[in-house]
Structures are given as C-alpha cells and as structure tokens.
C-alpha cells in the first residue's frame, strides 16, 4: 500500500501512465507517510486532477471526487438527512413509542452521504479529490478544516464520525484566488507547472506510443512556442496528447505550415488566440516540402 520510497512512488505512478517529476513524486510520498492532504496549484491543464487519479490507480484505492463550484454547500458536499425516508419511518412506525422513533430516525440509515462523508466513512482507504477548491468561497474552506486536519466530520445528531482508514486527500486549485492561510497550513504544497521539453516528450510518447520520437520532439517544441505566447488559454498537456494522436491519424511525418494550420484548433481554442498563433507560430514553420 504505502510505498517505501520516493522512487517507488514515482515508478508506481509511471506504471499507471503518469510521469511525475521529482517534487510531485516526493510530495505524494510524503502525503502517504505523514497522512497530510496535498494542495496542488498550477495553471490549467498541467495534470493536477490527473495526479489524483493516477494515485488512486497506483495505490489501488477508489477515487472519491468532489467537484467544487460556486455556491457548493455542506448538504451537497458532506451529508444530508433523508427527510422523506424519515417521514416514511414515522408513518410506518404507527404505534411505536415516540422515544423509539426519535432514536431511530437520526441513525446512519437515514443519512445521505455526499463525497466528503463517503471518503471518511469508507471501509477501504480511498483517494479523496477535492477539485478546484478556489471556485468555492472562504466559508466552505473553513468547513473543510476539521476534515483536513483530523479526518473527521461532526454531525450534531450523531456525534463525530472519524475516518477508519486514512484517505489520501488531494486539493487542486487553479490559483484564481488566494486560499486562506488556515487551509494552506494543513496541507503539503505542490506547484505543478508545464513540464520541461524532455518530460513532455516522454508523456506524449507514453500516450501515443506509435509516434516517432523526432516527431514528438517537434510537436512538443511547437506546443512550447505556443505556450510562450500570451494566450487566453495556453494548450494543456492533454491537448498535446490529443494533437499527437490527431497527427498520427492524419499520418503526417513532420509538422509543416499546412499541417499546423489544419490541426491547430486542437491545441488553440479561442478565436483571438487562433489568429495570434497562426501569425506568430505558423509562419515560423517550414513550408511543405515539394
């Protein structure tokens, strides 16, 4: 379960198709050892969510995912009483004494568990992914604190529910707002950035193994050029991979101006960006060899 060393974690992640760099592997390793949540920040599309999924696959733990959005509240994130069922219980109970009913209807049976509760109450250890935490408001962050530091949830009617197994918790943030100190304090911090050329080549080749290495290098270099421009939405790693697959389908062996113009829409997805990229990057590419 818990891997012995940083190298082992890195290897395990690679086996399930995620090439982690040193810091990512180290932090994943520490998170398992120390039982601390990881806060992953970085630009969109560098594989933050993917890291959680890969950890889930490599450790064989099921993934519990909470997608955050504006206005997310605890009824949707933690738990809620199933009042319909409670009502039914009362009506079906008929003559049962008041005491019995009252005892009954606030039992675990009437609890609707939501992702956070699921992660805590799960019999087997899980990986809990709290995605895009920066989309919620600070109040929600505050609510998470108990969960993150003690891995427990307090329900007034039931008392504390503590995790029986230690979940691996991963929070991701696109850095669209500053998270509170209190939250950061409880987490290990990992900044993921776009990978270097060599690593991205490896990633592309891992997901598009039929691609010749030279073409992959060319592709990654072009994507790098595009990322250097000041775009609304720079291409993510997933888009590099998509593009690689597209090129394979198109059966090209070099990226020339025409190929680029035809397939550019896979990596650039904004009207204004497309113009900019066509002008700045497209022009640099060689014309199709006659």
């Amino acid at each position, binding site marked *: 379960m818990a891997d012995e060393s940083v190298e082992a974690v890195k290897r395990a992640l690679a086996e399930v198709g995620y090439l982690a760099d040193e810091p990512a592997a180290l932090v994943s390793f520490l998170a398992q050892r120390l039982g601390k949540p990881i806060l992953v920040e970085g630009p969109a599309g560098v594989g933050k969510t993917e890291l959680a999924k890969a950890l889930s696959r490599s450790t064989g733990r099921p993934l519990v995912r909470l997608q955050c959005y504006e206005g997310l509240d605890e009824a949707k994130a933690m738990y809620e009483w199933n009042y319909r069922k409670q009502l039914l219980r009362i009506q079906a109970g008929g003559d049962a004494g008041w005491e019995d009913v009252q005892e009954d209807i606030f039992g675990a049976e009437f609890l609707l568990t939501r992702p956070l509760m699921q992660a805590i109450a799960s019999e087997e250890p899980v990986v809990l992914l709290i995605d895009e935490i920066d989309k919620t408001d600070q109040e929600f962050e505050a609510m998470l604190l108990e969960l993150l530091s003690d891995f427990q949830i307090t329900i007034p009617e039931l008392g504390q529910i503590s995790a029986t197994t230690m979940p691996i918790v991963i929070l991701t943030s696109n850095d669209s*707002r500053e998270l509170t100190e209190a939250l950061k304090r409880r987490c290990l911090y990992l900044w993921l950035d776009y990978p270097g050329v060599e690593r991205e080549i490896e990633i592309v080749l891992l997901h598009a193994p039929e691609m010749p290495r030279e073409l992959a290098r060319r592709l990654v270099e072009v994507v790098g050029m595009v990322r250097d421009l000041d775009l609304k939405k720079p291409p993510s790693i997933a888009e590099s991979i998509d593009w690689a697959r597209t090129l394979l389908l198109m059966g090209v062996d070099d990226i020339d101006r025409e190929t680029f113009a035809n397939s550019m829409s896979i990596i650039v997805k904004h009207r204004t960006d497309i113009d900019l990229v066509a002008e700045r990057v497209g022009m640099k590419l060689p014309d199709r060899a006659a």
Partner: protein
Amino acid sequence: MSPASPYGPKADPGPPGFGAKLLGFCEELRGEGVAVGTSEILDAFAALEHVPWTNQADFREALAATIAKSQDDRRVFELIFERYFFRAAEASAIEQGLGERPGDGEINQGAQPAGDGERLDSEQLAELIRDAMQRGDENALRDLARLAIAAFGREEGSGVVGVDVQRIRRSLGLSAGSQPPTADGEERPPLDRDQLTAFERHLRRELERDLIERTETLPASRPLAELDRALPTSPTQDLAAVHRAVSQMKRRLATLGQEQRGRKKGQTVDVRRTMRASLETGGVPMHLRYRPRRPRRPEIYVLCDVSTSVTSASVFFLSVLHALHDSFRKLRSFVFIERISEVTDVFEQERNFAAIARKISSEGGVADVSGYTDYGRVWLEFLTEISEDLDPRSTVIVLGDARTNGREPHADVFARISERAGRLFWLNPEPKLYWNYGDSVMSSYERFCDGTFECWTTRHLENFVDVVAGGTPRSG
C-alpha cells in the same frame, strides 16, 4: 531580518545540531515575510524523517512542500535556502579551520578517469559534462563543476563570479543548441538552455564556495527585499495590507446593503427544512421554515484613473483593484485616462501583480492621445457601455483625482450614473486640502456621491471601509 517580527523575539537556538539549523532557517524566512507557523515547522521535521538527507533535491523539496505554501513563498524559499544552508556549511567549515586540499574530495562519478591525479584534458571534461547535462544528473554536475574550476578557474580567476562562470563555460566549448558527436562518433541530441543553466548554476556555486574558502569571509547577506522580491517597489509591501482591508470591505459591502434598503415582504418557504423540522412534531409541519435570506452579492464597478497626474497613486490603486478582484467575483474594473477601457479580463487571467501592472500599461487600450484625463467623456462612455447593467444593487467606486484639465466635467452625466447605481463612492488620492484647487472639480461631483474619501495609504483605505460599514455615508 526585521526586528519587530510578528512571532516575537528570536527563539533561543538551543543546543547545536540540525534542529537548530532548521529553526534558524525558518527564522530567516519569517524575516523575509513568509508566514511560517509552528505547525509548518513540525511538519517539516516530520517530513525529513522520511526523506534521505543525502539527496539535496529531496531534502529541499520536502522542506518546500511543508513550509512554502505559495509561488511567492517558494521563490523566497529558494533564495534563502541557497543562502542559508550553503553559507551555514561554509561558515562552520571556516570556524573549524577546515579547508579543502586538492585531491581530497572523492569524485563519485562512474567512469571517472581522474583518479590518477592527472589533469583531465578539456575535451574529455567537456564530454563528461555533456553526458551529465543530458542525464540531468545533479550530483555529477556538481563534481564536474569543481573539476572544471580546478582546471580553469583558480589561477586566472577574475574575482568576479559571474565573469568566471562564462569564461569557464567558453573554454570548455559548451553552448546550447546542437552538439558535436561523441568520441565514439555517435550523434548527440542538442542541449537546451535550461540544461546549460543548470551547469552554470553549479559552477557559480562552486566558485562562490571557492571564494569563501580563500578569503575566509562570507559575502554579506543582503536583505532579499532589495534584491529580488519587490519588483514594483513600494506598493507591493502594502499589498498584504490592501488585501486585508479589502477582505474586510467584502463582508461589509455584502451585508450592508440589505439593512438600508428595507426587508422584502415575501419570504420563501424552505420545504426541505420545514419537513425536517416537522419530524419533531411527528411529521406535522407546525412551524414553517423559510429559506435563509442570503445577502445578495454586491456587483461592483471600479473606475480607476491611470493618467500621469496620479502616476504615483495609480500603482496603489491598481493594487487595490488587484485585491478587490481576489475578493469579489462580480467585479468589473475599468481604467481610464481620456477614454475608458475595461480590464476585468486582465485581472482574471493574471494573478501576479507585476504582470498585471505591465499588461495594463502596455495593452490597457486606454486611448491615450493627449495623456490628459477627460472625466466628462469617461462618464459618457461608462454610461453607454454598461448602463443596462447598472441597478440599485451595484456599487460604483471611482478612484481618481477629479482633475479635468479644464474640460467639461459633465456632472449631469455623473448624476445619472449616481441615480442608476445603488451606491457611489469616490476615493481621491489627493489630500482634502487640494480638492477644488486648480482644475480639480471635486465639488461638482461630490454632491452625487454617497461618500468621498481621501485615500493614498492603506490606513485611508481602512478608514473608507469603516465608514462604509458604519452606514453613515454623507448624503448628497
């Protein structure tokens, strides 16, 4: 290190050992304004139990993951880490009178033909370095850097580290781009700039180490604030304070409007909660529960003057805008000189303050023909651009000096904006004394504002927040 540390006086370093070193390191970080709490230090110690200390990269990353919790912190962390651990080791070496004699250090590079004490020829050395750079083997690079210094550095050193680094690199014939084939005639992939920089970094460090050893003194440790951190100078130091004031403001703006505008009659029954409550009475809904009245999100429009007459203040204002964007989702910001230009996007895309400032100045698109503010025109444009969106819920905040350069102030248009919007505040970067002198037409606008404030420091900003929260705006 700042004497008035928020964490109280410096802790007694205790007995010598690594713990004390690490605490000292954290103390340095605090001195540079990184918030390192006790829990973080405990985490760091816990993390180090699981990481081999001999691997420098792991050691550093483990510390960073537990201590530096944002990109900015991380940058400071890197600088201090270099300075602290590197210098600490050197300092104790000097204290104990240790020195490195040539041939002393074991070179742990696999096929290393330097064992016989003969000097490597530079071809061979360059070869090895290229190999190491390609593998990205940091430890080998470090050793090779020392070797290179031994080969080229000592005798003819210029004494300036940066110059020596480049000289050694050149004499080895290393450059980015395509590489000559290996000795065996194999092709070599080209090196990129980063790989080369990695080697240069090692060179630099080893040269510095060398220098310290020779002179037996440590280079002075400059405070980072001067060195690398504060790019746009003064306002960033205030940035944190601005952010604090603004987050206070957020809460108050959000809750304030409701009381003033009276309660609505109708309330919505919350079925879920009513049923839930009815369980106490055996399923008979005796008490109705209502949906909690959530404070409506304020919609904020900020207009910020960035003309030359407010140059010094506009950086401060931009940092206020920056902080506002962190706190409010429904915020639209505009900058203006002669005409108005919406910059909401810029703030949403960029998080880094320096980058924002640069972007706004380069592509804010504030058609700046004469460089003189034209408030009248700005109001007209603002009103045409967003008149449909303005409603009693919206708050408009103007940051500007109301100096129209003798142009038509169009106070009537401003009045229309004031009518449409729920509240309108004006923050003026000039002291009250100067208002209405010269071309300042503050008085003609003041009548239509729910409040006017002088504002050129964070304290003024806090005052603004207080007054707004106190609910005693001067009525116009």
